[in-house]
């Protein structure tokens, strides 16, 4: 018997507290003089004696409660002899299911070896099965049902994940901390060098945990892969499209590789490239990319088989579309803003957008983004239409002007226009941008805003909106606001050629292009992701449901998840389809992490060091091989709870008696 944390016994000093309280309580019962006791009887003292008994009982219960809690914190234990089955402790079987294990029957061999380990366990010995890639999946609880362990091993299938030995070690440490017996970990993996964490210390296990590494080696190590693809995410002109790919070799000799380009499963081009030994080569597919309108599922793939075929294709999605039609709405008769914006949009290459004046009765929902220039006092129906448009995922660039300032509010958004800041044009008094969020996509690289002069700016109370740029008098110039699933950009100075000289400055072209890209999400979508990346589905809880189809064409989310999930982990390679409201569809291509392509194994010394380190941990573990500690703190805490309940009951009885006595008096 012993104590795990004997310093907690110092807490027994707390026992003085109830003793002191009870002595104080008893001291309070001072006697009272009375003229004569000839009408009192000795039997009347019963209640007082009972109360004193209660005091003693209460005192004992309180002392017991404190003592039990303190003893529980001291973590007492008793040593006991282990049963034969218990002497083996808990056996953890960790099987690597990453993409690299799918080649050369590695996973099958790992499962076979794990099954042999289970067969060798003595009856009654407990085991647990884990599979790991970038994350660790616990397939069974700690059980002595060996059939269950075998079934779990058989259920493991190869995944497209990359393996992470650091993540596995972290999971093992957590399991080791909650285990109250020696743990032996059997690790079945190809032990890629690329799976190792940056620091060897991250592989450290906890005390009492031993590691047995079962290296699943592959005969072939030479592996080629398409490391990356550079292709237009959005295709406006198929004839001029160009696809570039980088072929990388790992442990490979110099060789010629054949690479094909496929579009929606059809091979459209073939290239042959000479790849140097363990080097890289670039492949270019010129001559256009003939794809239909909408998203096309494309891939660049190596033809020849190698050590890992799973990484030979590289998927990417291309969206062929016409330039986005940006609707323009203005409440003034001036045509300046439209001309400035149209000129700026036309100057961008390639032409991703076209600006179109909004016709009467035209629905907002038809456009990926709208520009609202000083609409003035909008009718309530129009304001509601704008709000609905933004809330349902639309985007708007709102340019504040005098007509809007007179209404005091920005339509569709709960932002107040508090007044106007003027600077005299005749002198040098003008306002300039003094503070800008350079990390914002709209301001990214916009270093020339400092030269823009502002003579009239409308003061907007930002409220919940984010200020992207401020002038030197601290007036917000550019703001970002969100409403529902949509967003808006607010420019606090009109584009009329008088309030500022922004349209005449080079920064204007960048501002218009970047703003429209950001608003229409043309440059925001992730085109290339790797397996196990997380993809954000929605920004607010009130957003509409998103239907997600996995590469196999199956729904990846339940109905409730589709309505409420904020993000989804892309756990398969291939093309993921996201369908949102308004017939908006997006296709993402998920590829195997290219670190899996390097089949170079962990040095044998590192593996031995890891095992040796774990063995040292086991010798310093809390239990001898034939003895085990039985922790007593759960029992003590249980007794403490019982003492607490008894104390509450006795104290309640005592209070009731006192209450009755007072009512009787």
């Amino acid at each position, binding site marked *: 018997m012993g104590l795990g944390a004997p310093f907690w016994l110092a807490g027994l000093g707390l026992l003085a507290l109830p003793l002191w309280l009870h002595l104080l309580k008893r001291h309070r*019962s*001072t*006697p*009272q*003089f*009375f*003229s*004569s*006791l*000839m*009408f*009192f*009887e*000795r039997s*009347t*003292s*019963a*209640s*007082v*004696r009972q*109360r004193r008994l209660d005091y003693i009982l209460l005192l004992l219960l309180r002392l017991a409660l404190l003592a039990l809690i303190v003893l529980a914190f001291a973590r007492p234990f008793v040593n006991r002899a282990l049963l034969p089955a218990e002497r083996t402790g808990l056996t953890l079987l960790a099987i690597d299911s990453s993409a690299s294990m799918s080649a050369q029957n590695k996973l099958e061999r790992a499962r076979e070896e794990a099954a042999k380990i289970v067969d060798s366990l003595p009856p009654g010995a407990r085991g647990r099965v884990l599979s790991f890639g970038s994350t660790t999946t616990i397939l069974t609880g700690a059980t002595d049902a060996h059939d269950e362990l075998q079934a779990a091993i058989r259920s493991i299938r190869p995944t497209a994940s990359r393996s992470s030995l650091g993540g596995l070690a972290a999971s093992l440490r957590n399991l080791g901390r909650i285990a109250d017996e020696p743990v032996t970990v059997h690790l079945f993996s190809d032990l890629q060098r690329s799976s190792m964490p940056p620091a060897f210390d991250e592989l450290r296990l906890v005390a009492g945990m031993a590691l047995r590494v079962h290296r699943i080696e592959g005969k072939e190590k030479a592996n080629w892969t398409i490391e990356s693809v550079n292709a237009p995410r959005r295709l406006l002109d198929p004839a001029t499209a160009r696809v570039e790919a980088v072929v990388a070799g790992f442990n490979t000799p110099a060789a010629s590789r054949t690479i094909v380009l496929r579009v929606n499963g059809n091979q459209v081009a073939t290239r042959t490239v000479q790849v140097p030994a363990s080097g890289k080569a670039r492949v270019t597919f010129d001559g256009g990319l003939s794809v239909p309108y909408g998203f096309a599922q494309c891939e660049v793939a190596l033809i020849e088989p190698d050590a890992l075929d799973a990484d030979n294709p590289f998927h990417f999605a291309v969206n062929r579309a016409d330039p986005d039609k940006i609707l323009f709405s203005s409440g003034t008769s001036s045509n300046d803003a439209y001309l400035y914006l149209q000129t700026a949009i036309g100057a961008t290459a390639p032409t991703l957008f076209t600006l179109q004046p909004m016709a009467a009765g035209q629905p907002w929902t038809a456009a990926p983004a709208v520009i609202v220039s000083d609409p003035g006092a909008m009718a309530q129906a129009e304001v509601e239409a704008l709000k609905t448009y933004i809330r349902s995922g639309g985007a708007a660039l709102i340019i504040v002007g005098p007509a809007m300032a007179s209404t005091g509010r920005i339509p569709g958004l709960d932002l107040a226009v508090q007044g106007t800041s003027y600077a005299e044009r005749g002198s040098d008094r003008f306002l300039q941008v003094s503070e800008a969020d350079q990390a914002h996509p709209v301001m990214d690289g916009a270093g020339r805003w400092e030269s823009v002069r502002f003579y009239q700016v409308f003061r907007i109370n930002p409220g919940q909106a984010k200020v992207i740029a401020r002038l030197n008098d601290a007036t917000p110039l550019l703001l970002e606001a969100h409403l529902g699933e949509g967003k808006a950009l607010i420019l606090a100075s009109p584009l009329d050629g008088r309030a500022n000289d922004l349209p005449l400055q080079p920064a204007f072209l960048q501002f218009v292009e970047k703003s429209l890209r950001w608003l229409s999400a043309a440059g925001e979508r992730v085109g290339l992701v790797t397996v196990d990346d997380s993809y954000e589905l929605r920004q607010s809880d009130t957003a509409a449901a998103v239907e997600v189809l996995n590469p196999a064409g199956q729904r990846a989310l339940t109905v409730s998840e589709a309505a409420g999930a904020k993000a989804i982990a892309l756990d398969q390679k291939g093309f993921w389809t996201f369908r949102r409201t308004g017939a908006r569809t997006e296709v993402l291509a998920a590829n195997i992490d290219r670190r899996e392509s390097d089949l170079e194994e962990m040095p044998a010394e590192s593996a031995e060091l890891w095992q040796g380190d774990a063995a040292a941990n086991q010798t310093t573990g809390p239990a001898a091989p034939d003895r085990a500690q039985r922790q007593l703190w759960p029992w003590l805490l249980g007794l403490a709870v019982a003492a607490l309940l008894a104390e509450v009951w006795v104290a309640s009885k005592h209070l009731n008696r*006192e209450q*009755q*006595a*007072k009512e*009787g*008096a």
Partner: protein
Amino acid sequence: MVQRFLDPEILAGIANLELTARTVVDGFIAGLHRSPDFGFSQEFAEYRQYVPGDDLRYVDWNVYARSGRLYLKRYHGETNTRLTILLDRSNSMGFASTGIRKIDYARYLAASLAYLAHHQRDAVGLIAFDDHVRDFIAPSSRQGQWLKVLHAIDRAEPGNRTDFAQPFLQFQESLHTRGIVLVVSDFYADPETVARTIAPLRFHGNDVILFHILDPMEINPDLREPKIMIDLETGQELEVSPAYAAGPYRTRIDAHLARLKQSVEGVGLTYVLAETNKPLDRALREYLGIRQGRL
């Protein structure tokens, strides 16, 4: 010291009572006191026709000279009775649940009654006792007697336990002359014993009035929680619960009061219960009222 006992508020009450008593007739008070001596009065009362045997000294010769008839001139006789106050100064009289102890209340009462008697030119005496006679001032109407009595009252502090038998045997011998005897005590004794001990005074022709001084806490104990009670006289300790104090104790003290009243009135004594939370003049008024009722 005199001022202490002659509290203006109490004096106001007593003055009213005196006025009431004097308007009723001094002779009524004399009759109340049943003075055995025919008074040498100064105040004319009435004429009465002479009958043979009357003392010729009281014939009004002026009337006879004017009318030729014999009339006797009668006067209000004044009391020359003796008032003896027996003041219990035992330890139990030191109890107080409010601001005033029972002994203080008893002393105020004794002083007030002595003052009342002194104004009626009665002889006033005092006996302070516990288990023995501790102070004795024989009744007298001499100059300075009033102050002697007041001093003796002032000296009466709780000192010992009560024992009616021993002191009453002593002062029965000094109470041969008829008068009024006031016994001021809390009477923590068996009612029959009290009646049996004090009754001989009545047999000697005294009017005996028992003022039973009790603290309201003794009649209606207000215990909020169980307490350890200590007897002021014996030092005995008992643990008492609020439930007992509110129930059985009340029953027993009420029975004791009823038995005491019945016992003492059964032997011709007058019983007055005086609670220390009630005005002092109320006891005096009751005293005079009781005397009036005896007419």
